[in-house]
């Protein structure tokens, strides 16, 4: 009951947030990214965290949603919602093919095979003509079916809804037969099979569900940015970022992926931009000409990926169960 109250408060707060912060498209943009990463991490968590199948190729499903929506929109002027549905179809198709190949494998082989499948998808999109190839797809002058392009709220609420649905599914799944079956598969595939669990079937179900949710996020992202190319939506980096977000938050938990996104997305933004330095300078904490100031101004912009790498290493070494793992030592 207490959990339900917390959820309700969170959702209401999230709905009210854009109204509270007013006209700050920058902050809302960051929040959209945050909601997107939380959705992607939560969706990945279904197959990676609960079923224990560490897919390193989730960019393929994200790209499936993004590309299908954009291709249909640019070639046939298809309604984005129809495009999104078609994207789900394509993502399912890729998931079925991937599942039939990679689920026969375990451990490293599974991880590597999932990379290989995703790379084949990426290279195919890059080499084909109707996908825009290396040029990507840019949409500026198509009718947007009543969507106000200049407003960020539809995308904010769209992402929020996807996230709530994803978390809702995860919460339901956790306490359902399927959820228990997935966790049994994660803990021991042989034991799971001996208890009457059709391992391949349940793994594929988890992957399909995860792919569908990932692809929806991909569609919304594409409509939001209105420019996609393979390096933005199909890259291995994206797959890795999704996993990292989940692991840092807490893999196999309901709130871990959200927590990971809440920590990592603002962190990445603060490191990428000069936010930290700028704020400190203006507050008079650090002088712009001091060595620290110069580092914040010039060094950090060059070194933020390095900082990201260091955080990754430290997290894996000292927080292998994620931030949530810290609080759940006893359990």
């Amino acid at each position: 009951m207490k959990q339900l109250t917390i959820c309700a408060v969170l959702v209401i707060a999230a709905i009210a947030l854009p109204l509270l912060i007013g006209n700050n498209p920058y902050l809302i943009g960051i929040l959209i990214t945050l909601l997107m990463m939380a959705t992607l991490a939560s969706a990945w968590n279904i197959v990676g965290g609960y079923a224990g199948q560490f897919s390193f190729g989730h960019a393929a499903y994200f790209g499936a949603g993004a590309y299908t929506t954009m291709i249909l929109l640019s070639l046939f002027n298809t309604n984005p919602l129809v495009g999104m549905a078609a994207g789900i179809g394509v993502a399912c198709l890729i998931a079925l093919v991937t599942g039939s190949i990679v689920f026969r494998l375990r451990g490293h082989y599974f991880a590597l095979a999932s990379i290989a499948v995703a790379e084949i998808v990426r290279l195919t999109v890059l080499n084909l003509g109707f996908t825009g190839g290396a040029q990507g797809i840019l949409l500026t002058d198509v009718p947007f079916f009543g969507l106000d392009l200049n407003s960020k709220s539809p995308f904010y609420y769209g992402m929020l809804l996807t996230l709530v649905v994803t978390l809702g599914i995860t919460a339901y799944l956790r306490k359902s037969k399927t959820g228990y079956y997935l966790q049994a598969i994660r803990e021991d595939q042989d034991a799971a099979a001996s208890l009457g669990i059709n391992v391949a079937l349940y793994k594929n179900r988890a992957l399909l569900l995860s792919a569908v949710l990932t692809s929806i996020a991909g569609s919304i992202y594409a409509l939001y940015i209105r420019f996609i190319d393979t390096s933005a939506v199909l890259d291995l980096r994206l797959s890795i970022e999704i996993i990292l977000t989940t692991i840092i938050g807490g893999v196999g938990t309901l709130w871990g992926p959200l927590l990971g996104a809440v920590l990592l997305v603002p962190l990445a933004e603060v490191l990428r931009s000069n936010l930290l330095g700028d704020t400190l300078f203006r507050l008079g904490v650090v002088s712009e000409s001091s060595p620290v100031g110069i580092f914040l101004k010039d060094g950090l912009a060059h070194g933020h990926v390095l900082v990201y790498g260091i955080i990754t290493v430290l997290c894996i070494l000292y927080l292998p169960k994620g931030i949530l793992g810290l609080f759940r030592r006893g359990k």
Partner: protein
Amino acid sequence: MKKTLLSIAATLILFFPLSANAAKTVKIGFINSITGKEAQIGENLTNGAAMAVEDMTAKGYSVTVVKEDDGGDPKNALAAYEKLVTRDGVIGVVGPYTSGSANVVASRADQYNVPLLVPAAAKEEITMKGYKNVFRLNAPANVYSQVLMKAVAAYKPKTVAYVYAATDFGVSTVKTAQDNALAMGLKEVANEKYQQGQPDYRATLAKVKGTNPDLVFLVSYDADAILLMRQAKEIGLTPKAFLGAGAGYTTAQFAQQKDISNLVVSATQWTDDVNWPGAAEFSKRYKAKYGKEPSYHAACAYEAMRIMIETATKAENPASLRTALKAGSWNGIMGPVKFADQSGYTNQNNHPMLVQQIQNGTYETIYPAQFSKKQLVYPFRR
């Protein structure tokens, strides 16, 4: 719980604007690819822009440049632009470098009404959508192939082979090259698109050699160009001319590899031997400061930043900056600059691209005639 709320509040504060500095300095944003795949070219832009800020400060301009990295990711570029215009309150933005990022940011510029000056992104579309607030200094991608083909047209080549990087720039440059080739009656004998960074192109080049083309049209960035030309020499690929579009064929590093780069023809936005005011001197100072030759990206960034600072200082707000950019004309290291609406473009500088040939280790401008001192050596020989 209290602590959590406090830390969330502290984080949120970062994203909100603080009261602006009292001092009367003009504030400009600069979005660039400092990290990521395009970091190498990004660095040239960083250097060029930094020199412009230095020069203008020395001239008495008071300017603050807010630098943003987009890592080549359009999502980050958009966040950067929105941060610059809403949080930092800049009156104009220079950048971004990559075409993808520039496209995304350009499509939002009219919404925020803050002028964007694109220094070096080549994608044609950026200035073809009629955006009022988007200005571009450099010539778009199609001009690369146009000038290259024009430079050799007089020698009546018959066949052409394309070897190019599988990137936006590579693909669109080759597309316009194909249009030009069609107009010139050239026959296409090979079309090879490659993934960047591979160590071995010998099989591809051997295949091209088998078609015995008159022209080999290449698009490569970075050091791929050196690799391709080395391996072309090994394989014995000897067309009548190598035409290089893309930054890889315009670097000092490439020219230094005399045994492979001699007589390669390339298109560039800028050289230091061109007779534009300050070009040679810029090159000299850049070399002294950074220990390497400036690339055309550096020159573009320098000039874009210089124009932005100069114009923005006179303008009070983004709207008058836009008017001033539209009305103004400049003549600096990039030659005459004027943002005009012409042949489908809006606010596009009609920048004359140059064709150069490496002759004995130095770039010599050979086309168009009014900027050139040397003649094209044709056919190519080892």
